[in-house]
């Protein structure tokens, strides 16, 4: 816990504590002991030595505090500027791809009656996926796995689009070859592209978790050093008081005050940052991740629903897929992965949207069942009409879209909550890092001055 992740930016700083560590004890223990003995023969020598150690300890505290906090500040800013947007983009890439496939199948099912909205929706999906993939490729800082997934998806997307267009061209000629191309394209999407997109989602989610943990880790080492420095200062002043009968030494009192302020600020600032990040996680990124998960499952179930109609009862692949995906969605509110669970963990601001989405979800499930019953009884056309139509109406497709729209609203609320809670953390931590460094330097000067005053009395 709390081991700072040394990224390249901190590489330069990483050497500091070692140097600082060398400053107070620039010699081997034996030499140091020897000198200590010889110095300790004289009171001023002892005084000087102890003062040096004290100043070094205070500086060490400042260095470690600044280093640990700066590290967390960088990561905390990264969470807002990089990891969370990347993980949200990955989910969005997945959704666009899955939706493109579902929409293409829907257009196929509507045959010659494919309305322009469906065509447009498909094109928007592809445009969104392409744009986000280009951004993801241009962004640095994602893991090698994520980069690989992005590169592969970038190659596969134009291929998929070409296959779908070939399917459309053949459809227009009235040839069943179009349907075969669509199946081929869909297979590419379902078996290669979506698993790739899933890898990307997982990699980015892991990165976000790691960064949030790093940013909210307590700077324990710095705090312990701070307390140690405070204790040493107190002890030194007590010893001085016994020796000299002078109660106050301005330099040392100032140093103590500075270190105390730094320690309190460090403790309080880290706790505040930790709780702000915890809040951003609790009401923002975590419910958002749960919601993304539910949305993706729902989308895949919807794709299975369409592809099952394309299949016309030739296999039970898609009805099984529907069951596998829809069952968890229908689970109770304590079961992660269910719609009820996504509502449960949603922040209060998203409740209205989630409640409405829940209603639409129930309607979708009911309509799907009705359509499935019609298909089982052999009335394919009725099943098709109940599933989707060019004009909308009471189809299961319409219910799904209404539900997804509400999910989108809830997602926007959760995204906003995350940003509001997390965006200030990086800045306040940076200030804390600078503050700790400045206070420690001030305290070290105070120690040197204070000890100097006493040394002068020996002249």
């Amino acid at each position: 816990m709390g081991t700072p992740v040394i990224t390249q930016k901190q590489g330069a700083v990483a050497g500091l504590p070692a140097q600082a560590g060398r400053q107070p004890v620039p010699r081997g223990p034996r030499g140091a002991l020897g000198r200590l003995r010889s110095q300790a023969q004289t009171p001023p020598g002892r005084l000087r030595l102890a003062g040096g150690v004290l100043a070094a300890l205070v500086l060490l505290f400042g260095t470690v505090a600044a280093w640990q906090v700066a590290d967390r500040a960088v990561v905390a800013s990264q969470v807002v500027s990089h990891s969370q947007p990347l993980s949200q983009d990955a989910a969005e890439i997945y959704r666009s791809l899955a939706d493109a496939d579902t929409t293409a199948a829907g257009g196929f099912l509507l045959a010659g009656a494919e309305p322009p909205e469906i065509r447009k929706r498909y094109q928007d999906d592809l445009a969104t996926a392409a744009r986000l993939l280009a951004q993801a490729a241009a962004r640095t800082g994602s893991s090698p796995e994520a980069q690989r997934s992005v590169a592969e998806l970038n190659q596969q997307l134009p291929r998929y689009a070409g296959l779908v267009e070939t399917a459309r061209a053949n459809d227009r000629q009235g040839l069943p070859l179009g349907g075969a191309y669509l199946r081929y394209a869909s297979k590419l999407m379902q078996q290669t592209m979506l698993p790739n997109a899933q890898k990307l989602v997982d990699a980015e989610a892991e990165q976000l978790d790691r960064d949030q943990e790093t940013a909210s880790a307590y700077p324990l080492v710095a705090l312990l050093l701070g307390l140690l420095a405070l204790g040493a200062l107190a002890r030194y002043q007590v010893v001085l008081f016994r020796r000299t009968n002078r109660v106050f030494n301005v330099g040392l009192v100032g140093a103590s005050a500075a270190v105390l302020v730094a320690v309190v600020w460090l403790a309080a600032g880290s706790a505040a940052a930790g709780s702000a990040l915890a809040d951003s996680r609790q009401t923002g990124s975590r419910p958002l991740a749960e919601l993304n998960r539910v949305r993706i499952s729902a989308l895949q179930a919807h794709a299975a629903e369409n592809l099952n109609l394309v299949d016309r009862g030739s296999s039970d692949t898609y009805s099984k897929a529907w069951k596998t995906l829809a069952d968890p969605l229908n689970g109770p509110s304590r079961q992660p992965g269910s719609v009820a669970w996504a509502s449960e963990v949603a922040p209060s601001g998203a409740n209205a949207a989630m409640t409405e989405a829940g209603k639409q979800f129930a309607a979708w499930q009911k309509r799907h069942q009705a359509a499935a019953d019609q298909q089982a009884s052999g009335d394919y056309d009725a099943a098709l009409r109940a599933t989707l139509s060019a004009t909308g109406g009471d189809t299961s497709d319409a219910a799904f879209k209404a539900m997804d729209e509400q999910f989108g609203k809830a997602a926007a609320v959760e995204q906003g909550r995350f940003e509001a809670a997390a965006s200030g953390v990086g800045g306040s931590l940076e200030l804390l890092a600078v503050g700790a460094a400045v206070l420690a330097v001030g305290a070290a000067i105070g120690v040197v001055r204070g000890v100097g005053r006493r040394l002068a009395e020996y002249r």
Partner: protein
Amino acid sequence: MRRTRMRTVGARALVAAAVLGAGVLGAGTSQGAGGTRPAAVVEQAAEGALQADDNCDLAASLPPAKNVGAKIRKIRERGSLVVGVDQNSFNWGFRDPQSGRIEGFDIDLARAIAKSVLGDPNKVTLKALPTARRIDAIKAGEVDMVVRTMTITCDRKKEISFSVPYFRTSQQLAVPGSSTAKSFTEALRGKRVCAAENSSTHLELKRDSRGASEIRTTDNQLDCLVLMQLGEVDATFTDSALAASQLAQDRTMRLIPETVLPSYMGIGMNQADTDLVAWVNQVVAEWRADGGWRASYDHWLASTMGSPDGYLP
């Protein structure tokens, strides 16, 4: 499409046609009638999977009769004939992309049967089946019958019942126009060939790959055309009627003229449903006699397959 091997095929066909003619005229079938079918002809007829044992007569089926038995009663109670069909075989059983309806030569036949059994050609439930699941679907009772360019083979006859033949067929290779192969063997040796999973051509390739470097199987012969267009395979081995329907969708494809494994298409049914088999045989005979067959042929197939002479069993 003239066939180069028409002479040998023709000789066999003549015998078979004589046998079949007897059956269609309602004079009973040639079951085990070794007298009308010289053993020599059987020997000559396509070696291998299609002619696995000498006692198999591809054209044989139950005598045509319209007797209401258990199966016919069940279908009438249900009020719909459940037929396993294809939605990917252009002009045979295919989904018209403009209307979304499944149509074709096979579908016409299925409707003719529904009209005869239920009095309404529209009382059919069409279940699209992949090639590999046809026999399982019949045996499991998922469908009453399969009308899906199904080749009659001796091996299949052990598992299901076939109606009398409704179309004469053989197997052929389709290759991309860029292919330089002249003969059947040349088009296969060292090439990647595609066939529908568990189709008679797939089984034949499994028996003797003729030097093919790779055998790709798909749900459906049409998926093979996609793979050929995308350059993933070099040839498709399928029914000559289906090869013609591939050609109709992509003019740059070419058929290797040689045909192999002459056989028939038949309607597949469960062996237990003897009343249905006899009924369907009667419908097929009527459909051929009253010009239904010819009208459907002219509508769906004439433009790509030419004169019907070689195809009427």
